C-alpha cells in the first residue's frame, strides 16, 4: 500500500519537473517555429543586420539590437560603480548598524515595481535631462540607461554582498589578526577572493538589463534608428516586441518580433551558461 503511495508521489514530482522544465524548451521551440518563415525567407543574418522600415518591406532588427546593447551596457556603467560602492559599505566600511540598515533598504528596493521607475522617470527625469543637456526631448538612451541603472543597482549590490558573504571565515580572521584595517581587508583579501562571484553578479545584472521592457519602452523614445549619441532616442528588442505585437499574425512584422524573441532567448541562455561555467570553475579551485 505504502509502496504505491511512494511511487505515485515520486512519479508526480518527476512529472512536475518535466512539465515545468518543458516550458523552457517549449518557449524556444515556439519562438523559432513562429519566426522561421521570415528567417528562411530573408536569411537569418540579413534579418539581424537590416534596418526596420515595414513600408519598404524591410523587417530587420539591427537598430533594436544596437539600442538594446547601448542601453544595457550604459546602465551597467551606471549600476556597477554604485553597486560596488554600496557593497563595500555593507561589507566592511560602514559601521555595523549603518551597514545592516543599508542592506535592509537595498533589499526593500529590489521590490519596487519597474513600472514605477518608468512612471517617475517620465515626469521627473525626462524633463531634467532635456533641460540639463539642452538637447533632444529627454527621452533617450541616456535617460533610460540612468533609470535602468538605478533600478538594477540594488540587485547587483546584493549579488556582490552575497559573494562577499561566501568568503571563508578563515581569510577574514587572518586579515583581522594581522592588523588589517577595514578597507585593507576589503581591498586585499575580500575583493580578490570574491572576484569570480562578482563577475557572475555583473553578468546576471546585464541579463536583467537586457530583459527589461518597461523602462526602455517608457523612457527611451523608441525611434527605430541606430542612435548617434546617448541623447538620441532608441528602441530595444523588448520594447520592439511590445510595440509591434499590435500587427497582423501573418505579417512579416509580426514574424520579426519572434526573431527578437529568439535573440533575447539565446542571449539569456548565453548568460546562464556563462554564469554556470564561472561558478563551476570557481568550485573547482583549490
Amino acid at each position, binding site marked *: 500500500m505504502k509502496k504505491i503511495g511512494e511511487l505515485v508521489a515520486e512519479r508526480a514530482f518527476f512529472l512536475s519537473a518535466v512539465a515545468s522544465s518543458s516550458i*523552457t524548451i517549449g518557449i524556444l521551440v515556439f519562438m523559432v517555429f513562429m519566426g522561421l518563415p521570415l528567417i528562411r525567407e530573408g536569411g537569418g543574418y540579413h534579418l539581424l543586420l537590416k534596418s526596420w522600415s515595414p513600408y519598404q518591406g524591410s523587417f530587420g532588427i539591427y537598430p533594436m539590437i544596437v539600442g538594446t546593447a547601448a542601453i544595457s551596457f550604459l546602465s551597467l556603467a551606471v549600476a556597477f*560603480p554604485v553597486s560596488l560602492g554600496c557593497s*563595500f559599505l555593507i561589507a566592511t566600511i560602514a559601521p555595523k548598524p549603518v551597514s545592516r540598515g543599508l542592506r535592509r533598504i537595498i533589499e526593500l528596493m529590489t*521590490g*519596487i515595481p519597474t*513600472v514605477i521607475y518608468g512612471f517617475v522617470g517620465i515626469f521627473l527625469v525626462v524633463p531634467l535631462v532635456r533641460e540639463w543637456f539642452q538637447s533632444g526631448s529627454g527621452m533617450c538612451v541616456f535617460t533610460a540607461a540612468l533609470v535602468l541603472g538605478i533600478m538594477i543597482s540594488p540587485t547587483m549590490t546584493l549579488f556582490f554582498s552575497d559573494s562577499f558573504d561566501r568568503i571563508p571565515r578563515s581569510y577574514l580572521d587572518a586579515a583581522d589578526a594581522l592588523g588589517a584595517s577595514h578597507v585593507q581587508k576589503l581591498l586585499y583579501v575580500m575583493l580578490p577572493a570574491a572576484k569570480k562571484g562578482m563577475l557572475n553578479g555583473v553578468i546576471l545584472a546585464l541579463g536583467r538589463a537586457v530583459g527589461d521592457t518597461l523602462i526602455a519602452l517608457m523612457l527611451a523614445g523608441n525611434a527605430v534608428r541606430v542612435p548617434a549619441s546617448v541623447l538620441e532616442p532608441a528602441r530595444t528588442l523588448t520594447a520592439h516586441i511590445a510595440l509591434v505585437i499590435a500587427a497582423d499574425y501573418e505579417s512579416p512584422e509580426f514574424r520579426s518580433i519572434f526573431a527578437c524573441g529568439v535573440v533575447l532567448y539565446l542571449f539569456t541562455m548565453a548568460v546562464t551558461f556563462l554564469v554556470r561555467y564561472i561558478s563551476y570553475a570557481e568550485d573547482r579551485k583549490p
Partner: protein
Amino acid sequence: MRLRILERLTVLFAWAAGLMLLCAVFLLMGYLFVKGGRAVDLSLIFGDASPLQALLFKQRVFDGLFPAIVGTLVLILLSIFWAIPIGIATGIYLAEYAGGRVKRVLDALFDVLSGIPSIVIGLFGFSFAVFLHKQYSNDIGPCLLISSLALSFLVLPYIIRTTQAALEGISPRFRLTALALGATRLQNIFLVLIPKSLSGIMSGIILAIGRCAEDTAVIMLTGAVASAGLPRSLFSQYEALPFYIYYISSQYSNPDELMQGYGASIILLSLCALLFAVAYGIRKGLSHFIFYRP
C-alpha cells in the same frame, strides 16, 4: 603611500556610491509621494461609487482603481494557484530525488527559465492564445487565464528554487532523524523536511506574489486592457494596476487622470513593499508555527 591613497579613495568612493543610490531612490520615491500623496483617498479607489456597495460588488466603479486592484489580486491568486503545486513538487524533485546528469540538466533549464525576459514570456502567451483561438475555440483569446498562466511561468523558477534551496539547506543529521525511526522517504519529506523548510518556501512564494503584482510586460501582451471593469470569468479581459500606471503615464488625458496614475503608483508600491516586508519577516517564524500547532 600609493596604497594609502587607494585605501582613502576607496572609502570615499563607497560612501559616495551609497549616498548616491539612497539619494536617487529617495528622490524618485519622494517625488512620487509629494506629487501624488494627496491623490490617495477613497475616491481614488472607488470613484463616485459608494465603497461599501462596490466592495459587495453591487455597484460598478468607473472612475476609480477598484477594478484594477481587483484585477491584480485575481491575477496574483490565479498565477500562484497554478505555480505553487507544480513549483513545490519540482523543487522537491530536484532536492530529494534528482541526481547526477538529470539534476544538472534540470538546473540549467530552470536557470534559463528564470532569465527569460518577461516580454518574451508575454509574447509566448499571446501567440499561444491566438493559436488556441484559431485551432480550438473562438472564446479563447488574450484573457485572464492566459495572463495568469504566462505569469505562473514567470514565477515558477522562484518557487522551485526557494523550495529546493530550503530543502537542500537542511543538515544531513536532521535528514536522517526520521529515517532512522522508520519513516519512508515521503513521510520524511512531508512530516519533517517540508515543515522545517516552510519559512524558506513561503518567502519564495511571497516574492513570487510580488513579481506577479508588479509585472507589466507579460500582462500587456496577454489580456490587460485600459478599461474592462471587474473580471467576470477566466476568459475575460481585465484591468490591472501596473498596466494602468503604464497606460496613464503615456496617455493621461487630463490632470485628474494623471493624479490617478500617481495614486495607483503609490498603492502598487505600498503593496509590493508590504509583500517584501512580510517575506523577510516570515523567514523565521513559520516552521515553528507548523510544528507547534496543537
